[in-house]
């Protein structure tokens, strides 16, 4: 089967869906192909239960494969580098993409993030500046219905936030003064969650499970724009993994996206192709699309496809308090501080610090999980291997102990782009369709590690000043957690020798192949990337509409 369209988009996450909705609304003929299914959102409450019951695992919620070490499954991957990365824990294949799962935190990058090399001699400059992107940040905030309030550390804004910010939590109030005392005053946290009914979607109902699923629909997810795109004529094809891109004889243009569906190999030809499948699957697709002309993969003359992978590594410090801290009453953080985005004090690095509202375990998770044997043994309970789980009043005491009186603070930091950190192909392993799986090879690096150590010291200072009776590092700089922000791998730049796409997001090698993703970020800052992905995608939609 073959098909022709003006614009073929690979991936129905936020980048692809926003772009498709915008172009289709302007009368363009658009086809979107996504590897995953279209989910029935009427089943979200069952997804909530899968999230809350410890006998299910996180990838269960959106039907990702849980064991990536198995060959022959859709979501297999390898991690042959230093980090044993849990890629499938927080990505979703399907219409809406990982925004079905995300926490919906939407800070903008700061002005300095676009100029790290010029200002500080680290990383690389972006080929565009904050001012170029600012109108599209406003556009993205409108499209995603962001609730927020201006903060003193962010770049200038030309428009107010579409919706008012969420009020801070009682828990935020316990640490507020201490954050300010140590140089990082808290401010409202921008969220693509409706603080009031808006755009045909509910206000937040307080289910408390936003990440990974919001049954009320108050949290923005990109299936909103996929649906909108369809209403104005776009075609969304689910369960349609694109397995290669074919180019013309000259090697200057992509002519078809080849995908597999219902056991058949099919092709979509198009005037323009936009790759919007994220910073893991986009380089994988390009590396899979080898030809005589491009033996190292498509758009890879620079050799930079898959290179400069970045994440946001983080730490978590928890304080115990003698008073109730009122955790787990809302599913998102309500305050944050971007004060340490100020980089003038040396090479310690860009970071975001934040008090959480979910310290300790969920009541239901604590009630349903027997206390881990290792924990009992660590507490000196030598009878643990022979003990029953306790129910009734003993269970209630245990749940109280595990859920009450904690406050968790987190920080996450910028990781610099390094050539060695990459998404490659593991040709020794294949997925369910026989194609080599992605292989994530990366390490955190000394710059980010130094930032994490600085962050840890700061978070201890805050909790001790706030009156915590005990403070401990739950996840520390040596083995950080990751925000599951996949950045880099098809970096944007002016030099075709060292970058994959230009400032208009068009690949240097192919005239009609574009990339809309955090994979184009030359540097990653510390800000959560999705709003910037959306802004870049809307800017690309304008560009394409003007050139088609």
């Amino acid at each position, binding site marked *: 089967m073959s098909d022709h369209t003006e614009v073929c988009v690979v991936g129905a996450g936020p980048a692809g869906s926003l772009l498709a909705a915008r172009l289709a609304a302007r009368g363009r003929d658009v086809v979107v192909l996504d590897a995953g299914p279209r989910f029935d959102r*009427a*089943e*979200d*409450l*069952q997804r*909530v*239960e899968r999230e*809350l*019951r*410890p*006998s299910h695992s996180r990838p269960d919620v959106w039907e990702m494969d849980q064991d990536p070490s198995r060959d022959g499954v859709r979501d297999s991957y390898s991690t042959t580098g230093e980090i044993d990365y849990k890629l499938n824990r927080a990505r979703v294949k399907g219409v809406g993409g990982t925004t079905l799962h995300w926490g919906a935190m939407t800070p903008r990058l700061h002005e300095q993030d676009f100029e790290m090399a010029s200002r500080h001699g680290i990383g690389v400059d972006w080929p565009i500046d904050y001012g170029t992107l600012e109108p599209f940040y406003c556009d993205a905030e409108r499209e995603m219905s962001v609730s927020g309030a201006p903060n003193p550390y962010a770049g200038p804004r030309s428009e107010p936030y579409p919706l008012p910010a*969420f*009020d*801070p*939590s*009682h*828990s935020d109030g316990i640490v507020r003064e201490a954050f300010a005392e140590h140089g990082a005053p808290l401010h409202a946290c921008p969220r693509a969650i409706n*603080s009031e009914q808006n755009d045909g979607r509910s*206000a*937040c*109902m*307080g*289910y*408390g*499970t936003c990440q990974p699923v919001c*049954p*009320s629909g108050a949290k923005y997810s990109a299936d909103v724009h996929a649906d909108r795109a369809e209403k104005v004529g776009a075609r969304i094809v689910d369960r349609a993994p694109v397995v290669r891109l074919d180019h013309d004889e000259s090697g200057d243009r992509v002519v078809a996206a080849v995908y597999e569906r219902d056991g058949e190999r099919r092709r979509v030809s198009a005037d323009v192709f936009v790759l919007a499948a994220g910073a893991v699957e986009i380089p994988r697709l390009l590396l899979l699309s080898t030809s005589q002309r491009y033996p190292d993969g498509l758009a890879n003359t620079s050799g930079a496809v898959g290179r400069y992978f970045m994440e946001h590594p983080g730490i978590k410090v928890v304080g115990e308090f003698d*008073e*109730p801290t*009122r*955790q*787990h*009453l*809302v*599913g998102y953080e*309500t305050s944050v501080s971007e004060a340490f985005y100020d980089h003038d004090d040396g090479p310690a690095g860009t970071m975001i610090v934040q008090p959480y*509202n979910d310290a300790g375990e*969920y*009541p*239901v998770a*604590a*009630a*349903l999980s*027997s206390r881990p044997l290792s924990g009992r043994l660590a507490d000196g309970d030598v009878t643990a291997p022979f003990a*029953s*789980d306790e*129910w*009734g*009043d003993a*269970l*209630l005491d245990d*749940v*109280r102990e595990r*859920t*009450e009186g904690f406050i968790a603070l987190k920080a996450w930091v910028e990781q610099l782009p390094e050539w060695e950190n990459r998404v490659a192909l593991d040709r020794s392993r294949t997925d369910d369709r026989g194609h080599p799986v992605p292989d994530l090879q990366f390490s955190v690096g000394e710059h980010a590690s130094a930032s994490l150590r600085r962050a840890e010291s700061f978070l201890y200072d805050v909790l001790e000043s706030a009156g915590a009776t005990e403070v401990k590092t739950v996840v520390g700089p040596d083995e950080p957690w990751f925000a599951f922000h996949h950045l880099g791998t098809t970096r944007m730049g002016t030099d075709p020798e060292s970058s994959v796409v230009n400032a208009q997001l068009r690949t240097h090698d192919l005239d009609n192949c574009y990339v809309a993703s955090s994979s184009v970020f030359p540097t990653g800052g510390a800000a959560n990337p999705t709003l910037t992905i959306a802004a870049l995608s809307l800017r690309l939609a304008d560009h394409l509409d003007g050139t088609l």
Partner: protein
Amino acid sequence: MKLSRRDALVALGAMGVGAGGVGVLRERAAESEEAMTDVLLAAAEVVYPSAVTPTREFVSAYAVGRRRFDADAERFERAVADLDRRARHDTGQSFASLSLARRRDVFRSLGADRAHANHGGTTAERVRYYVVDDLLYALFASPTGGELVGCENPPGHPGGTDAYQRGPEA
């Protein structure tokens, strides 16, 4: 605190099971459903803290409403029946007619007190999943159970955006 049918409906609501469906099905309740309710009420008396009193109407509404609407109904019914069967095997009496201490012994005899919950696993794992954990889920994902640990809007319950702003004294 007595757990009412309303508490059950709140718990069911959080799982996407509507009150109307429960009402209709209650009228259809068969003998087997009565028997299941007996077993689950007796199990709830073991599993729940003494601060709450599980009632027949709570368990009946919850048990009937809970698993009549999903693909797991059969496995759920089998797990409940397995628990009762083990009681009869060990003691010669139904699970519901045993003292609290003897009921705990039956859970131990099955291994459900140490099993990891698994909806497709061994008898012990299924009893843990469909009896013990289903009952605990109904309690601790609802405001009634959440209040026992100072969390009146626990994750899974759509209790709005006021609770998180309030202090413990409010």
